[in-house]
């Protein structure tokens, strides 16, 4: 029971991070119907920018930790968003009216180039960060000494994710930008005829996805304390799997899928074998897709002749 609880906590934390990245995939897919293959790299860039800003602030010293972290988060979100925006300008906008595969390939190219850019400018070694947020709550103690621990960092991750999710859902539901996004999702031509600036809306979608990925990168730097230029690939695949699992195009679905993937990974590595945790995540994906081809919360695809 205690072990189960601990894995649950770990899984939820991991799942929250996957969920944040998955939203970027699902939003871009929703609005332009394409996989943003470079999104994993955007998350990696967010993590690097966070680490660099933390180190920069550390060397300048002073101020309270909370304020400093908040500044870092904002900086990372802004700069990473800029990367998201540039990505859309370079790899997607020129290909808006081209075959879908063309955009997929240019996104894969972008992902390779961005990964290599970070490798070249930052070096291939692991970058580490001493834990900044320390301390934890002991929830339960088993007789043999095993304690269920909920660290402040984990609380921070889950709370941040919940707050962002709430803010985000509200934005999609209530603001004019959210309306424009939903309009573009349904019919881009019609939306533009009705005065929605489609280019701007798509750009902003990429920007928002990148900002959330930056938050995920920021949290990962603080949580694990180790990053390298390659983390974007696996996290990207997992998050995309999460988005598909939840039903791509659906934002609650992305969150649900992220949590499920996180939980599957945590429980699989807790109870079975840590080596095959990636296989488990994909196997569940395949099983879900066989029985629900459009994901858990996805709308069934209507076949039109």
């Amino acid at each position, binding site marked *: 029971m205690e072990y189960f609880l601990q894995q649950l906590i770990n899984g939820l934390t991991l799942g929250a991070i996957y969920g944040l990245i998955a939203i970027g995939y699902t939003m871009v897919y929703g609005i332009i119907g394409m*996989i943003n293959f470079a999104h994993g790299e955007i998350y990696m860039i967010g993590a*690097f920018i966070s680490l*660099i800003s933390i*180190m*920069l602030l550390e*060397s300048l010293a002073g101020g309270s930790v909370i304020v400093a972290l908040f500044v870092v988060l904002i900086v990372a979100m802004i*700069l990473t968003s*800029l*990367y998201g925006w*540039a990505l859309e*300008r*370079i790899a997607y*906008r*020129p*290909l*808006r009216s*081209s*075959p879908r*595969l*063309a*955009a*997929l*390939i*240019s996104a*894969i*190219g*972008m*992902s*390779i*180039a*961005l*990964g*290599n*850019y970070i*490798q*070249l*400018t*930052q*070096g291939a*070694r692991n*970058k*580490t960060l001493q834990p900044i947020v320390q301390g934890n709550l002991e929830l339960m103690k088993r007789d043999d000494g095993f304690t269920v621990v909920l660290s402040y960092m984990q609380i921070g991750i889950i709370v941040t994710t919940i707050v962002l999710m709430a803010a985000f859902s509200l934005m999609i539901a209530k603001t004019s930008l959210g309306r424009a996004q939903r309009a573009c999702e349904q019919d881009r031509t019609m939306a533009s005829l009705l005065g929605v600036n489609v*280019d*701007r809306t798509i750009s902003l979608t990429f920007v928002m996805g990148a900002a959330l990925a930056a938050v995920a990168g920021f949290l990962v730097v603080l949580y694990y304390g180790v990053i390298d230029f390659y983390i974007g690939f696996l996290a990207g*695949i997992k998050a995309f*799997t999460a988005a*598909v699992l939840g039903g*791509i195009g659906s934002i609650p679905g992305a969150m649900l899928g992220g949590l499920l993937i996180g939980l599957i990974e945590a429980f699989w590595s807790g109870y079975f074998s840590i*080596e*095959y945790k*990636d*296989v488990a995540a*994909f*196997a569940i*994906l*395949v099983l879900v897709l*066989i029985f629900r*081809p*459009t994901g858990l919360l996805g709308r069934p695809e209507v076949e039109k*002749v």
Partner: protein
Amino acid sequence: MPSTGNGTQASILPDSGHRRLPPGAIFKEAGLTAVVSLALLVPFVGFKIANRGGEQFLETRLPEVLIAAGLIFLGRIFLILVREGSLALPVAGGAVISAIGLFAPIPSAFIQAVAFTAGLVIIVRAAFMVFAARRRSSTGREFGSGFADGYRKALPWLASALIVFAVILPLMPFGERRTIDIAILVLTYIMLGWGLNIVVGLAGLLDLGYVAFYAVGAYSYALLASYFDFSFWVCLPLAGLFAGFFGIILGFPVLRLRGDYLAIVTLGFGEMIRVILLNWVSLTKGPDGVSGIPRPSFFGLEFKRYPAEGTESFHQFFGLDYSSLHRVVFLYYLILILALITNFFTRRIRTLPIGRAWEALREDEIACRSLGINPRNTKLSAFAIGAMFGGFAGAFFATRQGFVSPESFTFLESAIILAIVVLGGMGSQMGVVIAAVVLIGLPEYIRDLQEYRMLAFGAGMVLIMSWRPRGLLSQRDPTISLARAEGKTS
């Protein structure tokens, strides 16, 4: 990095060649680009997380950022000038930027390399714009249409010439060891590209995990050879069979899915196979890989200087002096033949009912179903046949390297093979050849830029796609179509 700065400029081509922007507007646009790229570059070019003696600290490189932003500003101005239709200034500017990259004492090799290539890109771009504009004004046709017609006529000649060239390549004076090695690599990718072309180009199924079948082929040969001492020639068909069998197993549950769902599941399968190869240590030796894979023999003749007792070696049998080149040349012809078989098979099967069914399925699945084509079996056959060729290529890879490890079968490989198919123009056999030469051969030749290879590779994929979104040689038209009013069949 060139980005299209102005928000309203949706297309790359100018709508009218003669509208001149005032210099102020040009500077404003270029300035904006420079500011944005400054913000993009500062975190990564400006700072480096360096590591010395186990301690991690930040290294600042601010001059580099300023130089880079300045170069981007210049480059952007020249790109705008190209768009506005001038030629001389951008070409000169591109040359200057390249020269700066080559000779100026910039403290970062990274910026030097990027500046050099960026200058070249500007020159090429200017040349193309002018070429396209001339072409348009003289023939009144869109650039590329005349090219496509001419290409279709020249194709048989081009193909034969290429095959002849490939056959005599090892005999040519420049056919030294390194060239042949690169040619073998390129041919392996061509074969993989042709194999994947069946799945993606003909049947229209987006497969992001093709490398799984390549891995299955390589490992089946490696394991059969090391556990049962099977020879290459026995294993080659077996490897193809296994890979095809895997194609069916993997394909069966997922072919109901469409488009991107299929893509992610195939990607997942590709990763699963790699993770299994990595972790099933008792069978595959895990991350260490399988080594000592036997080399192929030429009808029982080994390529060894000193053959085992009682056997004869290739050079002894033919009375030649021993040369290590023999085996390389033999491998070269082997992959050439395998690749040509793939090509021949694909070209023939396109005209058979099954090939027609693939193309029809790609165009409209519902129509196919109502015409009595079984989509599941048709897709499965495409999957299995594509996988089979991947397996052949894998067995060849294993025998050529003498060593396989899961390292060689990452997603990047799948992405590269898919990029070859899509860049070449989906469904086009010749396109695959050209794309493989451009993507694999060129970077191999410029080994000096080793570190920048993947950067150039990725950027090249983006550039080629935005330049020709349908691929270098697009051939999406079905192999056969109903005769039009002009009585033209293609």
